């Protein structure tokens, strides 16, 4: 693919890619003797700017948020269609919506969980809640909010907030990608939906939550439609696995199920699913000029945030290096 629109953004991003944390840096951070040392190593990298804004020596969340914020600002600046950034920012909006809805419906104060990274600033969203005016949100999300409020009147179940808003998030993401007519973005989101649906399916099947619950948690717009999962709900896991042999995520399911049957946890499958999505984002390495390298960079930056968080939490709780290393995902270089 060669898209002239992406000449400048891609070459500029290629330079930034060289400044990502490489595996040697990550290794050094894992081997560091304590959390302060990790911050010191980060200080030698691109993170130095954000580190100066830390309020205390272990305030790594500020560093991560600042860096993510800057990355999205950069994306908005260089993308030929800046509105595409919203597809990736939506998860922060949804997260904030969940927190605020739970706060207002359950009368709790969870403000410390809010993250001011989304398309709508936290302050504006609070105002929306105060004035009960949600018109600034995407129509799909407005419909979702109504559904939540209606269902809450009948039976107050906080889980519904998560289920409905997650569904709204992926529906909206898919709609935005469809509107952009960008094949890669659509496939990327479809694959994410597949991985979420497979996980939901296995969880529902494992704990026997029933067909109605499955229908509620499944997301639309995946490569497999919702009936597919419902059909296999009463069949063995093996036949579900075998039916997927033609799909490119077959190995994720096959390997994940193998470990599930042994240890009865989906941890391995979740890691494989994350890697699968990350590998799709890595396609950016092989596309000369298109949106792929930019999405790849964005994912790499978010991945770095995860890496730093895992290492910092591990160091602050004196977790052995091997366990930290196991938890780390592949670094995008």
């Amino acid at each position, binding site marked *: 693919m*060669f898209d002239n629109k992406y*000449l*400048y953004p*891609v070459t*500029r991003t290629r*330079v*930034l*890619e060289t400044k990502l944390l490489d595996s040697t840096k990550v290794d050094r951070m894992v081997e560091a003797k304590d959390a302060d040392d990790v911050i010191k190593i980060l200080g030698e990298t691109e993170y130095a700017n954000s580190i100066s804004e830390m309020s205390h020596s272990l305030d790594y969340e500020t560093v991560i948020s600042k860096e993510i914020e800057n990355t999205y600002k950069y994306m908005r600046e260089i993308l030929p269609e800046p509105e595409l950034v919203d597809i990736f920012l939506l998860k922060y909006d949804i997260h904030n919506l969940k927190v605020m809805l739970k706060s207002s419906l359950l009368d709790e104060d969870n403000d410390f969980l809010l993250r001011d990274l989304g398309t709508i600033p936290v302050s504006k969203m609070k105002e929306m809640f105060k004035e009960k005016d949600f018109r600034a949100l995407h129509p799909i999300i407005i419909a979702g909010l109504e559904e939540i409020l209606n269902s809450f009147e009948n039976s107050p179940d906080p889980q519904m907030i998560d289920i409905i808003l997650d569904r709204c998030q992926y529906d909206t993401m898919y709609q935005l990608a469809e509107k952009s007519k960008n094949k890669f973005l659509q496939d990327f989101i479809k694959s994410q939906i597949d991985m979420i649906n497979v996980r939901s399916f296995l969880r529902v099947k494992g704990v026997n939550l029933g067909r109605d619950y499955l229908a509620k948690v499944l997301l639309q717009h995946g490569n497999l439609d919702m009936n597919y999962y419902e059909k296999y709900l009463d069949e063995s896991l093996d036949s579900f696995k075998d039916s997927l042999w033609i799909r490119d995520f077959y190995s994720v399911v096959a390997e994940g199920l193998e470990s599930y049957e042994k240890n009865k946890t989906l941890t391995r499958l979740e890691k494989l699913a994350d890697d699968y999505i990350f590998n799709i984002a890595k396609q950016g390495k092989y596309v*000369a000029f298109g949106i792929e390298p930019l999405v790849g960079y964005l994912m790499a930056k978010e991945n770095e945030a995860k890496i730093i968080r895992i290492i910092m939490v591990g160091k602050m709780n004196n977790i052995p290096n091997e366990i930290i290393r196991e938890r780390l995902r592949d670094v995008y270089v």
Partner: protein
Amino acid sequence: MTDFMNANGGLILAFLGSAISVGFAGWGSVIGVGMTGVAASGVVTEDPSNFGKTLLLQALPGTQGIYGLLIGFIVWLKIGVFGDALVSLTLQQGWVILFACIPMGLVGFTSAIYQGKAAAAGCAIVAKRPEELSKGMVFAAMVETYAVLALLASFLMLWFGVKL
């Protein structure tokens, strides 16, 4: 009308040929150099030390324009643009000159664009690994082969094919 064509048609066709050669090859170079320039700016924004390297890449798609002008020059030389008076050409000689110019115009146009793409991708190589500039240049320079072949074809046709 027929009289006019018989008297001037040869010269008109010859000028048309040189215009095709200079115009199309130059047009291609404009696109190619522009495209590489945009890509190079991306690199230099984040790392100004790569200016010289990316400039080399940007210059590559520019050669087609020069080749096109060269062929144009030969045509003008042949028909006496630089002399005291224009040489009078038969219609057949005019057609020969026109066709001799087409390889340079056509191949110059397309090869400059595609060389621009290869050079822009070369800028992405420089962005990630500045020390690998030469590899990016080789990829882009491969396209040059065909521009040179077209130049050769046009030149041979004009030099040996048109006897005035």
